[in-house]
Structures are given as structure tokens and as C-alpha cells.
């Protein structure tokens, strides 16, 4: 019997523990906002796990050769405090093995009583949690869904390597200053009226704007990959997925977790920096063609950049804020910070996700939570209240654009038909996106309602009744406001 109610039989871990295949130790999270900096580890499936000091120390000493007693001895020397062999077995069986870090050491194989696994906070899952083949994986809130690859990992890494020299300081300085001068000229000397006139006179030019915007988005993602590569990390694939209700390009820069704060921020800002480069390319094209619509694309690119700086959803601004405070996954702090702020739990009863933060990080994250929670509640609430009306409008728009496309095809105006077809496809995709979002919300509500009162049938019944009542009220509201008519 080990203190704290844990019962560990010491004769069950007969083989020296070894790490699961593919596990990589990434070292400390640099420049972190935690009082005691955590360390990072990557599982064979790519899942990155943040571990507190003692867990990481034990994981680092596991090599398939050392027995728990030897690990305990070495860990004690490193810690400057005594860690016993039984405590090492406990950490391996209860904390590390369920995370898929240790090979062949399921919790029950270590003789842990069933009540022990629930004795501590255990691994926190980002979002509501998900388990694949017995291994927990992050299922974060407001994350990208339905991903498809545009540029596989090797190609994205090659693009990052190729474009890496653009992150040298003299190049950055020239790009920023030149863009500033260009903006001044566009806004004060040239103006946008000619571009708008061209667009209104010839709506087919919208196809050009759309194509350039797509290229700009892909170039933006290459900027993240190049920034990641410049810092010494390896970018993953570049692709397209569904974010909330919108199609979204993405780059997987998970490997940048192991970079310093400067390296992570370079990765975050790389996309915006490449937007500036793209703007200069557009300016060059304008110098050659004098097509005023290009100036319009430059302004749209600036608006896109400003939007990217918003920190409330997983745009670049979110990652910039996260890296400035040194705390990964801010959304995973929302509930702990709110709970910690409202409760007066004793120190050892506080959620370590909130209690372990340093004061500056805690202040910034609390302010962020106070802004993001009402904003998301209002936005999602409004979306739910107006969902059928918005989808109906989008659907009518898709139908209208389809009719126009047909008419233009009949009249042999193929470019205009393509513009209309694009509009129809986007409207239809938006409808699909809202339905996908709704399905996700329903799934989360159902799984959350099912898990919350675990082991308490009456509470589970109450949760089910509350969910059913909310759904019924929403449908009644949609009916009463006529949102389900005139489709």
C-alpha cells in the first residue's frame, strides 16, 4: 500500500518497462507560462503530450533495461527528493501507460485497484476527449474537421526549406518597409475606385479575385511551413478542411511545439509575412498590367490579415497569444480558469491546468477567457436561433446562382457561368458547413450529458430531459418565426 489510497502490488511489473514504439522525448516546453515548466513527448501516432516534471523524468529513464528500483534511484538524484520504486510503478501503470507512452503496461496489469485510477486528476483530454484504439487523443474544441491533403508532408517540408531564406532579417525589413510604402500609395494616391469600377463593369473579374485569393491563402500556409522550418522544426502537410462552417486551408506545424518562443512566434507570423510578400508580387503584376482589380486584391489581403490576428478562434492571433503567454491550447484552459476563479478550493484541490500558471500568464488568459466565452456563446447562440433562416437564404442563393450559371452557359458566356457556379458551390458548401457544425454540437451535447453524471441515473435522466427541452424549445422557436417555411 502506497500513501494516498493507491494499492500497487510490487510483483506485477516483472519486465523492465520500455517506451511504446515511436515515442519521442521532446524536452522542456521552452519559455512557458507555467510556474514549473512542463515537458513534451510525442507518441508514435504523432499525438503530443505535455507532462509535468516527475512524469517526464520517469518516462525519460524508461529504456527497457532499467527496473523501477533503478529508475527511482536515478529520478531521486535528479529531483533531489526521494521517489520510491513503488511510486515509479504507480506512475508507469496509472499515469503513463493509459496515455500509450509505455509499452505493454496496461493499468490493470500493475495490480492497481479499480478505485485508484480515479484518485487523481489523470490525463486531461483537450475538449471532450476521444479515445482511439484505447489510446486517448486530443479532441479540441473549435478545431478543424474533415481534412484533406493538398501538399503532403514531404512536399510541405521541401517548400518550407526552399522558402526558408525569406526569413533572414534584411529580407524581412525590406518586405515590411516596401509594403508600408505601397499601402501609403494605394490608399492615398491611387485609390480603389478604378478597381471597384472594373469589378462592377465586368463581374467575371471576380473569378480573378477568387483565384488570387486562393493562391494567396496557399502562399500564406507556405509561410507557416517556412517559418516552422527556419526555426528547425519539420512542418506537416498543407491541406484544406472545414473550420466551423467555412472551408479553410491549414498547415500542420505541430512540431513547432518544441521550438523556443521566438521560433513558435516566427511560425505563427510566417503566414502573415507571406501575405506581405504576395502583396508585393501583386504590386509587381499591377506595375506590368495596370489592372486596377489587383489593387482591390491587395486591400482584401490586408483585411484577411487583420482577421487572422483575431485571437478568439484558432486563427493566427490565437497561436500568437498562446505563444506570447507560453501556454499551449488556450481553449483547454477555459473551464479550469473559470472554475478556479469562482471556487475557493484548497491548493491541492485546484485544477493544475489553472493553478500551475504563472501570474502574468494567468492574468492574460483570464482576460482572454472573459472575452472569448461571451463572444462564442453569443455567436453560437445566434447561429442556433437563426440557423434555418440563414441556411434558407444560402440555399436560395445557391439556386439563384445555379439558374444564372445555366442561363450563361446557354448564352455561351462561360466565364460568367463559372463565376456563378463558384457562387453556387460556396453557398451550398456553407449550408453543409452549418449542418456539420450543428451535428457536432448535438454530438457534444449528447456525449457531455451522458458523461457528466456518470454513475448517477437520476442526474443522467435530468440531463437528458434538459437537452430534450432545449431542442424542443429551439424547434418551436424556428416554427414560430417561420424559419422552416418557404424552402
Amino acid at each position: 500500500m502506497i500513501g494516498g489510497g493507491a494499492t500497487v502490488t510490487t510483483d506485477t511489473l516483472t519486465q523492465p518497462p520500455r517506451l511504446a514504439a515511436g515515442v519521442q522525448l521532446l524536452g522542456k516546453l521552452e519559455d512557458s507560462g507555467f510556474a514549473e515548466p512542463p515537458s513534451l513527448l510525442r507518441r508514435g501516432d504523432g499525438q503530443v503530450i505535455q507532462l509535468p516534471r516527475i512524469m517526464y523524468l520517469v518516462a525519460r529513464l524508461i529504456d527497457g533495461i532499467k527496473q523501477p528500483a533503478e529508475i527511482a534511484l536515478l529520478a531521486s538524484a535528479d529531483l533531489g527528493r526521494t521517489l520510491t520504486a513503488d511510486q515509479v510503478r504507480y506512475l508507469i501503470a496509472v499515469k503513463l501507460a493509459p496515455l500509450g507512452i509505455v509499452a505493454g503496461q496496461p493499468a490493470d496489469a500493475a495490480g492497481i485497484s479499480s478505485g485508484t485510477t480515479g484518485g487523481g486528476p489523470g490525463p486531461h483530454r483537450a475538449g471532450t476527449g476521444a479515445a482511439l484504439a484505447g489510446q486517448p487523443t486530443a479532441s479540441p474544441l473549435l478545431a478543424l474537421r474533415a481534412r484533406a491533403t493538398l501538399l503532403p508532408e514531404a512536399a510541405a517540408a521541401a517548400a518550407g526549406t526552399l522558402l526558408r531564406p525569406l526569413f533572414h532579417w534584411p529580407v524581412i525589413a525590406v518586405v515590411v518597409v516596401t509594403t508600408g510604402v505601397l499601402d501609403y500609395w494605394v490608399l492615398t494616391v491611387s485609390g480603389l475606385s478604378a478597381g471597384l469600377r472594373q469589378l462592377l463593369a465586368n463581374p467575371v473579374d471576380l473569378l480573378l479575385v477568387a483565384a488570387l485569393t486562393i493562391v494567396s491563402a496557399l502562399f500564406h500556409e507556405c509561410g507557416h511551413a517556412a517559418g516552422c522550418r527556419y526555426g528547425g522544426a519539420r512542418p506537416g502537410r498543407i491541406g484544406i478542411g472545414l473550420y466551423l462552417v467555412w472551408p479553410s486551408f491549414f498547415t500542420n506545424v505541430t512540431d513547432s511545439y518544441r521550438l523556443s518562443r521566438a521560433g513558435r512566434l516566427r511560425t505563427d507570423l510566417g503566414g502573415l509575412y507571406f501575405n506581405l510578400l504576395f502583396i508585393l508580387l501583386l504590386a509587381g503584376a499591377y506595375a506590368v498590367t495596370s489592372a486596377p482589380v489587383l489593387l482591390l486584391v491587395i486591400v482584401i489581403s490586408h483585411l484577411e490579415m487583420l482577421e487572422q490576428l483575431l485571437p478568439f478562434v484558432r486563427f493566427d492571433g490565437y497561436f500568437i497569444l498562446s505563444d506570447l503567454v507560453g501556454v499551449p491550447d488556450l481553449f483547454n484552459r477555459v473551464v479550469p480558469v473559470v472554475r478556479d476563479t469562482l471556487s475557493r478550493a484548497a491548493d491541492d484541490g485546484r485544477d493544475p491546468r489553472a493553478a500551475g500558471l504563472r501570474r502574468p500568464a494567468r492574468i492574460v488568459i483570464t482576460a482572454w477567457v472573459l472575452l472569448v466565452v461571451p463572444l462564442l456563446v453569443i455567436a453560437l447562440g445566434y447561429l442556433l436561433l437563426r440557423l434555418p433562416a440563414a441556411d434558407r437564404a444560402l440555399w436560395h442563393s445557391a439556386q439563384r446562382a445555379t439558374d444564372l450559371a445555366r442561363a450563361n452557359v446557354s448564352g455561351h458566356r462561360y466565364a460568367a457561368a463559372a463565376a456563378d457556379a463558384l457562387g453556387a458551390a460556396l453557398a451550398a458548401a456553407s449550408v453543409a458547413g452549418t449542418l456539420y457544425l450543428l451535428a457536432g454540437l448535438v454530438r457534444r451535447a449528447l456525449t457531455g450529458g451522458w458523461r457528466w453524471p456518470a454513475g448517477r441515473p437520476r442526474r443522467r435522466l435530468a440531463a437528458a430531459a434538459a437537452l430534450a427541452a432545449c431542442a424542443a424549445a429551439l424547434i418551436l422557436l424556428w416554427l414560430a418565426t417561420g424559419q422552416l417555411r418557404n424552402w
Partner: protein
Amino acid sequence: MSVESSVSMRELELESAELLPNRETLYVAKCYSPWGGPTQAAGAIGLVNILSGDNINVFVI
């Protein structure tokens, strides 16, 4: 070896790992109304774009 104190079991129970989500930088392809101009200024989180009324004309990404 200089060992100052023992690690308590309670301390180990409170040791808590976090599964970090993939870092995926996003660039949302949004919709613009050809007559209303880009609506993202109002659509601070991307949702409002589709909630701006009954006469939505999706045109350009």
C-alpha cells in the same frame, strides 16, 4: 546524492498530463457579398458572415 525530502503519493496523484491538439494554422476561405463588400469586419469569428440577413449572395472566396 543529496536527497531533501520524499515525494508524497498525493503529489503523484496530482501529476497531470495534457494531450495537446495538433497545431494547425488556419486560413478561412470566406464568402463576400458582391454588393455589400467583405463582411468579415462584422463577422468577427466567421459565423456572422452567414447571419447577416435573408439576402445573402455568395460570390467570392
